[in-house]
């Protein structure tokens, strides 16, 4: 088991490299850079800034497009590039490779680089500020999802085909079918504006976490309810349950000891993709509730062309998902006696 875990951990790095590379390619391919939309700056100033962001690499320029060596006005530079398209492409590729290497080295040491939009801030500051908040939100949502989902699924399975079952499964389906950007404002309207029980937005102590946590977790509560019900129904039919019953064990013991354990399996294996969904869902929830988390930073970064920040969010998110998936697989191994991790 331990060896399996270590092997998986090591396997994370190639995956992260792929993700990093993919994001980097997107970033380079995107039109626009950090200095657009601003007052034209003197050529040397611009050049210095570009050197800082590794958008220019003197070695590459010297090798492929020596004409660029002096600080040139953008229009002149465009003309030079238009005259020698192949050399220009080669220079861009070369610069791209250098930038890739530089960023990769930085990422390896945990430095995500400077923000494109907020020139005096590093991306690390954003991540450090936003990540704990998003994690908190995700945990609260997961708690809601598990609590509501497991309970509902349990009851539905026990009272199979009764009205409780239908009601629970109906509600579950409703949870899946209502987008969270509808549920959120609805809940805010009812619980924060009409019945002034909870705050309508922002983040702070526990009252602030309830509405966004519930909204984010509702869709997953629904899935978990369905999975729990299905998993338990499958388990209840198994022979070993019948044996337990035949042995005279009380119904409650049967369910709690045996059925729940088996029924939990599909839920545990669902947790992996669920967490991915939580990160994505937090984009909208953080926007609606004005929560300073990574999801909100990401959307703003994407819309503002703050590519370094957007990239970092993608990579951090991927790290979390990979680790979470690993933990889920390990948990599955513990829970399910049928699963054995071979060398």
């Amino acid at each position, binding site marked *: 088991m331990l060896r399996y875990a270590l092997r998986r951990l090591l396997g994370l790095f*190639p*995956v992260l490299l*792929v*993700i990093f590379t*993919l*994001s980097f390619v*997107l970033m380079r*391919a*995107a*039109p626009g850079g950090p200095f657009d939309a601003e007052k034209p700056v003197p050529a040397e100033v611009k050049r210095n800034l570009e050197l800082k962001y590794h958008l220019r690499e003197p070695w590459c320029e010297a090798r492929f497009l020596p004409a660029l060596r002096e600080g040139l006005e953008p229009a002149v530079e465009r003309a030079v590039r238009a005259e020698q398209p192949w050399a220009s492409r080669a220079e861009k590729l070369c610069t791209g490779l250098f930038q890739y290497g530089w960023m990769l080295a930085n990422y390896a040491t945990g430095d995500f680089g400077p923000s494109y939009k907020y020139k005096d801030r590093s991306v690390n500051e954003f991540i450090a500020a936003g990540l704990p908040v998003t994690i908190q939100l995700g945990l609260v949502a997961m708690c809601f999802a598990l609590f509501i989902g497991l309970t509902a699924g349990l009851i539905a399975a026990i009272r199979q085909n009764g009205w409780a079952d239908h009601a629970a499964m109906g509600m579950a*389906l*409703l949870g*899946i*079918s*209502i*987008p969270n*950007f*509808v549920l*959120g*404002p*609805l809940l805010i*309207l009812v619980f924060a*504006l009409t019945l002034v029980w909870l705050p309508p937005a922002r983040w702070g102590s526990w009252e602030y976490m309830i509405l966004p946590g519930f909204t984010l977790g509702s869709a997953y509560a629904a899935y978990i309810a369905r999975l729990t019900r299905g998993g338990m129904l499958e388990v209840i039919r198994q022979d070993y349950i019948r044996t337990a019953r035949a042995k005279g064990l009380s119904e409650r013991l049967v369910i709690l000891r045996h059925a729940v354990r088996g029924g939990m399996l599909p839920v545990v294996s669902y947790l992996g993709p669920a967490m*991915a969904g939580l*990160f*994505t869902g937090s*984009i*909208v929830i953080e926007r609606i509730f004005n929560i300073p988390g990574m999801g909100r930073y*990401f*959307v703003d970064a*994407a*819309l503002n*062309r703050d590519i370094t920040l*957007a990239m970092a*969010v*993608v990579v951090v*998110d*991927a790290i979390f*998902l*990979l680790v979470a*998936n690993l933990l889920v697989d390990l948990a599955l191994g513990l829970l399910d006696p049928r699963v054995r991790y071979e060398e």
Partner: protein
Amino acid sequence: MNPALAIEEEVQGTSLWQDAWRRLRKNRMAVFSACVLAAMFLFVVAGPWVVPWSYEQQDLAYGAQGPSWQHWFGTDMHGRDLLVRTMHGGRISLLVGLLATAVSLTIGVVYGAISGYFGGKVDAILMRVVDVLYVIPFMFVVILFLVLFGRSLLLLFVALGAVSWLTMARIVRGQVMSLKNSEFVDAARAAGVGHAGIIFRHLVPNALGSIIVYATLTIPRVMLEEAFLSYLGLGVQAPDASWGLLVADGANSMIFLPHMLIFPGLLLTVTLFALNFLGDGLRDALDPRMKS
């Protein structure tokens, strides 16, 4: 009854599909859902011909009115009729759902079938790629894509389809792997059918059950993802509409203009409900393990 005839009838037997069809018919919710979907389809396709307004026609003086005899669903901020916009939006939402699912289906089936059929090294590599792609937070990449390269309906289909093919590939691979050593496959090989033929004419059709179930359950998911992107302003663009866009606009105006949320929201939810019920019903019908 003539005993000989009775025995004949009994021996006739039923095929897998007929069995499934019978089970499906008995599932009242599934049948009802199918009817609802058919009605919805009719509503969005034929509806705009009946309504006197066009979906983009503005009448500024009548903006943001509630339901009335002229405008059954009311109007939006620009005075555009909400009924016809809901219909038009339904067309686009369903189209996105179907097309994106079709994209996802195509990629997933081909990929999974090839992986499952050839097994060994090929399978290991292909599935490794799937594992890697699984962990990528796809929505983020889609958002970046749409922001950086512009929004178009085509990009939307492809992006949404590309997000959901992974599970389809795994399912198909599983099915193909369990079936690839069956007798009918040996028979086909003996008859000289090539790899492609075996995969696409023999193995895949047998996995069709799972494929259909998963596809039916993918459509609502994709529609919700489109709604999510429209909420961020990256999905369908004005003056076009989609249920997602209408619902996103409506959710914000909910306090004062509830009709803008209720009508498209209801239709969207009902359609998603119906699709999910139908998918569940299909799964129960096609998967003999789950007893009702």
